[in-house]
């Protein structure tokens, strides 16, 4: 085949362009840390990437949902713990008051403490966390008990706060305030206080068992909450595992293998240098240089 200068120039330009393109590709990979910079580089990787990224977003969101649930539960548990303590004290006071040896003054003093404890329990029932009343179901903007001490509308019929923790799986985050503070919870305490104030020692006995019943419902609620907290722990572990896995798969799918990319780049650079110096050698001489 007859070879002319023009052909050699063309070939060399083509080869240099090709080599530049490859270098550009490796540079892109190193700069972005990604195997591909546009979907058409590898449609398969790209489409899988879209799916993985959505999965990761979901895993992250469900983790954050779970953290939200955790907060609800921790606060509810703390509040119920506090409520139990208050109720225990009420029971002690009821026992103390019921032994019949107390003077009227002493009973009135007990009544004062009972009133304070009731206020405390009332504030627990109306506990607001993150601007939400946590013992009023989904009706989080309304306090369960009004300033008159009466339950608000809907308190008796509150709905569970359900938070999704996986696709299609929801966990109840709250403790039903009605099962703890509902019924005659506060009426009992009021009556107890009333009985103390009127020194009606004969009737005080009955409150011991009534308070016991209240303690029991709080303990039951905590037990139920504890079981859900256990489940939440499991779910949180699984979610963080999922998040890790999703990140890992995503990284394997689209992140560049630096060793490989750098090696490729260096190899390409060597070839490019060789092509340039060969070109410089071949382009230069012609017969003109040697004829006198």
């Amino acid at each position: 085949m007859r070879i002319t200068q023009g052909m050699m120039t063309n070939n060399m330009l083509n080869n240099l362009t090709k080599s530049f393109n490859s270098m550009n590709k490796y540079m892109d990979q190193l700069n972005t840390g990604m195997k591909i910079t546009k979907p058409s580089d590898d449609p398969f990787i790209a489409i899988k990437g879209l799916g993985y990224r959505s999965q990761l977003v979901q895993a992250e969101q469900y983790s954050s949902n779970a953290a939200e649930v955790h907060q609800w539960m921790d606060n509810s548990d703390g509040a119920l713990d506090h409520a139990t303590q208050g109720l225990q004290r009420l029971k002690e006071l009821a026992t103390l008051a019921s032994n019949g040896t107390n003077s009227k003054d002493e009973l009135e003093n007990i009544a004062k403490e009972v009133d304070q404890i009731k206020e405390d329990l009332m504030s627990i029932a109306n506990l607001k966390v993150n601007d939400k009343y946590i013992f009023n179901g989904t009706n989080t903007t309304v306090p369960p008990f009004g300033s008159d001490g009466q339950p608000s509308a809907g308190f008796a019929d509150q709905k569970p706060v359900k938070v999704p923790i996986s696709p299609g799986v929801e966990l109840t985050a709250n403790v039903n305030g009605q099962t703890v503070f509902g019924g005659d919870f506060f009426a009992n305490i009021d009556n107890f206080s009333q009985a103390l104030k009127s020194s009606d020692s004969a009737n005080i006995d009955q409150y011991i068992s009534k308070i016991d019943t209240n303690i029991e419902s709080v303990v039951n609620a905590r037990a139920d909450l504890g079981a859900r907290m256990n489940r939440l722990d499991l779910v949180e572990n699984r979610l963080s595992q999922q998040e890790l896995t999703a990140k890992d798969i995503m990284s394997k799918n689209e992140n560049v293998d630096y060793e490989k990319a750098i090696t490729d780049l260096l190899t390409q650079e060597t070839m490019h240098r060789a092509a340039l110096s060969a070109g410089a050698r071949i382009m230069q001489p012609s017969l003109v240089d040697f004829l006198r």
Partner: protein
Amino acid sequence: MSTFHGLEMAKQALFTQQMGLYTTGHNISNVNTEGYSRQRVNFETLSPYPSASRNRPQMPGQIGQGVKAGTVQRMRDSFLDTQYRSQTSRASYWSTKTDALSRMESVMNEISGGDGLNKVLDDFWKSLQSLSTNATNSGARDVVANKGLAVAETFKYLSTSLEGIRTDLKTQIGDADGTSGKLGDANSLLRQINSLNKQISEIEPHGYLPNDLYDQRDVLIDQLSQIVNIKVTYEKSSNSSLDIADGIANIELEDATGNSFNPAFSLLTKGDMTKADSELKKFTIAYGDGENNSISEIKFGDTVVPIDKVDGSLKALSENYGIKNGDKNYYTKMLSDLDKMASEFIKAFNEIHSSGYGLDGTTGRNFFTGTKASDINVSSEILQNTDAIAASLEANNKGDGQNMLKLSDVITEPISGLGTNTSVKTYYQKLIGELAVNTQEAGRNAKNTALQQANVQNDRLSVSAVSLDEEMTNLLKFQHAYNASARSMTAMDELLDKIINSMGLVGR
């Protein structure tokens, strides 16, 4: 035999070698001229003396009379031209298509770090989920409104950007009357080729080869083959033209497989040489089919061009822009797919949103307005008052975010209007997947066809291109022959000197 036979022969040799030298100079001068084919002087021996005839002088055999320059021919292989042109049409089709699809791809911007629709939908889903757990939080409501706005704006951005590129493609294809864009180029090339045909037909009958006009014509034909694939046949310009003359180029449109249409689709014939430029047939185009303003037809003269059956950049541009009833209308298809996706999404989202209750207790409100990708927006009611976002399933249950969960499902759960088991997300992923595969295929074909084109181009250059080394060698060859001819003339000169000045002096 004439006395001066030797002088004449040497003179003829000097002239002829000089022509060789000049042609070499012409070749060297045009070493970098695009489309130039190297030229060669075909040397011929002059007819010997005496010619065989009844009154021939009685001589023992014939004696040569020297050399003459027969023709000046350009070195070119028409078979390689044909190959090169069909490769050019193919390469030009794929590279134009790759360009158009790559532009679409960069608009969609769907790769890690990109802010494509996929990511925006993910973000929106996240904001809906967050609001579901904090239904009364005004911050979370703002986030939902803004992420919803981002979804709407991304739809609109995609739609207007793709339309923008389509407008660009239309400019590249050309105006209705075929004066601009590729159509304008094709029309102008045909006119120029016709004019060269005319010039060539005026030179060839005189026994000349208008090599440089041939070259110019071949460059124009090469350019035309980028736009549509063509078949070139040659016709003798007159009976008195040389046999090796190229003649008049007839150009016809060819289908993508390299065959003539039946009946043949002629673009330029010998007969066109008598016509003025304004009378020549030309490519025209009609737009305006349907709401997306597709190409209704491309015509040459009165004949409809079967654009889907040809090759070249015109087809690639048309396919991307959109042809009436075409099956590869990449841009119009993407636009209508996005519209469908937006419309189903808006419908499904609004249906659920309007059944829920806002913080202000109202219900029956739409979240999105509009019906397609180009006009989707977040309702101004919601942008002005985020309490209107219907997070709750019941009027007075403000802390309930269950409706947000149902709304977040609109993004991830199948919507029947988009196909069986197809959600907004998977539908979009399918669009991106198809685009990526098409772009990849186009890119690969563009690379391959460009390589083949370069190979044929090399083959062609191997025949036609000027090699300086070769020209320098020829220069030496002709120079030496010239010197030697001059030397033979000197010998003749001495011979005659002897006859004229030294002979006939007997008895002086």
